[in-house]
Every structure is written in C-alpha cells, then in structure tokens.
C-alpha cells in the first residue's frame, strides 16, 4: 500500500486564536506580542500580513507601518491547550500523529485508510471539526511523504486543501520556486540562483556532482527533494532534544553585573528544570548576550561531566561571562544546554551532589504543586518578573498534563 501523509498547518495560528476569542477583532489586522515594552511580534493575522507586518518586527516598527494594527498580548496556555485538543481530534483518525510544532502536525494515514472513504475526506472532516470547535482555519497537504505533504500544505495557504498523488509528485514540484522546499532559506536560495537555479525543475536537472561539490551532503539532499523524494529518515519518537535553552530580552538594557548574574541564575534554573522534566542531563552549555546595537555574542563550554543542577549551570555560564569586558549594557541574555543524553538513575558517589539533587527534586515538586516560581532562589527577586511568550517552534510535551 502506498504511503499517505497528511500535513496540517494552522493558519496564522496565535492571531487566529485571538480573533476567534474576540469576535470584534475578526477582519482587523492583529499582531500577537509579548507583554514587555521591547516585545516583538510573534504572530500576525492575514489582514496584517497583507500590509507587510511580519514576525520578529518590533512593536514600534509595526505600528509605524500600520497605525490601525491591534496588538494583543499572547496567552501561551491558550495556544498550547488548543494544540493539545487538535492533537486529540487527529488521534481519532490514526494513532500515528506527529506534533511537529505548536501549529503543525504530520498524520500518517497509511494504516487507517481502509476505515475512511479517502484521505481527502479525512482532511475535509478535520478542517470542518477544527473550524467548528475553535473557529480557526488550517491548511492541509496530502502526499506520499512528509516533504511533499508540507510543500502542498504551504501551497494551499490559507484554508487550503492540496492533495498530490504519487504519480503527480514530480510534475507538482517542477515549477515551484526552490525556496518552497523546507530547509532552503534566503542564503541557500541566493547560492542556487548563482548557479542559475530558481525552480525545482532546474534543481532536479542540475548535475548532482556539482551540487555536492558546492553544498556537501546537502547537494544530494537538494537533488532528491527537487524530485519530491524525502531524503530524511522518519523522526524517532524517543529522539533527544539537541539543545534546551531559555532567553530573555529585557525592558531596559542591563549594565549592572549583579542584575546580569541574577538573570543568569534565573535562566540557569529554568534550563535545569527543563532538563529534569525531560529526564535528560547535559554537559555542554552556552551563554548568549546581545548589545543594544543588536551585535550578538555566544560563548560555549563543555564540562567533563553531565549535570542537571541549576547551580552548576549558573556557575558555568557566569564563568564564561566573567572574563568578558562588556562594551555596553546588554538587552538580551540566553542560556542553553547541549550535548544532551538521557539521565540514568546512577548511585551518586558524591554525598553533597546527591543532597543537591534531592533538594532540586523537592523544589520541583513544590513548583509542580503550587505553580511555577512558588519557590525560587531569593537572588532572582532582584529582577522584575519576566513574562514569556511562547515560541512558534515550541512543541507541547508528550506527557502533557491536560491529556484525558
């Protein structure tokens, strides 16, 4: 049986949810932002996109471009819960559903096709149900693999449904611009243009050896993808995250090292808590800081041991920052953990370390019971509370607590 993959992408997700919640916003240009003064746009409605309002623009920039733009503060839990409920809808059609991001899903219908008239019928039913339940729209692509399903889904935006049969894949791809292939951004697009390649047909017919010389292994991938062949292996459900990080843009630039350290303590604690939640440990850590002129620097270090301790992460990142003579105040700080492996419950040979581990487990339990930040290091009180906006790349945890 031929494989059938359905890709579902929610249209202007965060902004659509806000428009559905607030009927008076329907048909108006809306931008979802964080609650800080320096927040950037995390999503915009189609009405706003039409006027060039894009994700990542500052509030001031966007307001200057479109004075009638309505700013709405993002509500993370609302978007996560909606994502979980959409996931529940999809699980009624097949257990083979991958939550690709907070607003994208891959559904492998191959094994459950006999239960339904056709994949297009399933897609139409899913679209109808999402529309009725949440008042938002989605675009669906159906194809023999994830790559073409995603491209088809993007082609039908907004509110589209594009199905590509196996025998039509090459023809479907032929005239598409190379940038429609996921993974080909502006930089790669420019490099391909320099070779005289602008559409997938030209990429398909281009000698692979030349592509390989220019782009390495990506040269082979590009050639495959231009034919509509997905060169990537299926995602392993137990795959570990490559990195886990948190960052903050501050309302005011921070020059005081004491406050910078307090922020680093807060960020380190958040990274450590995520590591513990994911049941992983890390030994690589990075610190990123950005000056008001947007120049950004990153320093990395790999420790000789794995850890989940917020205190160790904090000491590591402050040790990275201490020798740096900051040329200005900072507007942004980020802490990331990489070089991650699964945590194993090994007996601790160091008594002190075991004590700390138990302490953090107790702190986690308290925060799980009474809410985030119920118990936190007193030093972090030096900083005003930061309000978070979810990243569109966020993926709800698999053991999401709301699942019924």
């Amino acid at each position, binding site marked *: 049986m031929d494989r059938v993959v359905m890709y579902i992408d929610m249209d202007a997700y965060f902004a659509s949810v806000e428009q559905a919640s*607030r009927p008076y916003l329907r048909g108006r240009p809306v931008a979802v932002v964080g609650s800080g003064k320096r927040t950037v746009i995390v999503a915009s409605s189609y009405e706003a996109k039409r006027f060039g309002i894009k994700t990542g623009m500052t509030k001031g920039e966007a307001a200057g471009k479109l004075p009638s733009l309505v700013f709405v503060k993002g509500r993370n839990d609302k978007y996560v*819960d*909606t994502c979980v409920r959409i996931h529940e809808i999809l699980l009624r059609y097949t257990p083979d559903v991958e939550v690709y991001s907070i607003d994208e899903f891959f559904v492998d219908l191959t094994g459950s096709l006999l239960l339904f008239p056709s994949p297009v019928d399933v897609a139409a039913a899913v679209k109808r149900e999402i529309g009725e339940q949440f008042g938002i729209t989605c675009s669906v692509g159906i194809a023999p693999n994830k790559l073409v399903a995603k491209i088809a889904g993007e082609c039908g935006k907004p509110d589209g449904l594009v199905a590509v049969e196996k025998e039509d894949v090459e023809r479907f791809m032929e005239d598409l611009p190379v940038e429609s292939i996921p993974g080909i951004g502006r930089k790669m697009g420019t490099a391909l243009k320099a070779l005289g390649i602008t559409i997938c047909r030209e990429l398909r017919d281009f000698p692979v050896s030349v592509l390989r010389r220019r782009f390495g292994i990506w040269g082979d991938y590009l050639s495959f993808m231009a034919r509509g062949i997905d060169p990537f292996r299926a995602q392993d459900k137990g795959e570990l995250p490559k990195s886990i990080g948190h960052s903050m843009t501050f309302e005011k630039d921070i020059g005081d090292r004491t406050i910078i350290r307090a922020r680093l303590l807060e960020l380190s604690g958040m990274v450590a808590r995520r590591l513990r939640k994911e049941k992983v440990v890390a030994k690589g850590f990075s610190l990123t800081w950005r000056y008001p002129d947007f120049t950004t620097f990153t320093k990395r270090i790999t420790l000789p041991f794995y850890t989940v301790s917020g205190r160790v992460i904090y000491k590591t990142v402050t040790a990275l920052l201490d020798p740096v003579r900051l040329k200005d105040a900072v507007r942004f700080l980020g802490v990331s953990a990489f070089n991650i492996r699964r945590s194993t419950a090994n007996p601790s040979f160091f008594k002190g370390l075991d004590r700390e581990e138990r302490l953090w487990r107790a702190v986690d339990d308290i925060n799980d019971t*009474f809410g985030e930040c119920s118990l936190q290091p007193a030093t972090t009180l030096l900083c005003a509370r930061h309000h978070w906006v979810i990243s569109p790349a966020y993926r709800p945890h698999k053991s999401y607590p709301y699942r019924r």
Partner: protein
Amino acid sequence: MVGVVFRKEGQKMDLKWFFWKGRRLEVKRTTYMWRERDGKELIHRFMVTDGQDLYELSYRQERLMWFLEAVETDG
C-alpha cells in the same frame, strides 16, 4: 461576586448566565475556552459575550470557584 450556571452537553461546559455587580448577564455565546494549570490546579477559562462586551471567566477546579478575570469593550 460571580455566579455561573452551566449545563453539560457531552463533555462541554455551556455557560448560560452569571452575576456581576448585582446584574445578571446572559451569555449569548462562549467565543473560546481553554485549560491552564497553576501547579496542580486545573483552571478552565472561558471568553464569553453578552452580545455587547467580552468577559473572561475562570473556573478553578480544586477550589470550585469562579472568577471574573477581565472585561473587554471594543474601542
């Protein structure tokens, strides 16, 4: 003080009316509902309209209490 009446339609809570400032407000439509967690406590949130203004109500499952969180008026 907020009082809310709801009926169970399948798994859905259907808000009918609530009291606010001594006035009984009829819920014309629930525009959105979602769930949040505050620690272990599950919170059900509802955006409802009386046809004029928009209200955000929350129901805290542990405490069995309703709260009026926000009132929004267009313009």
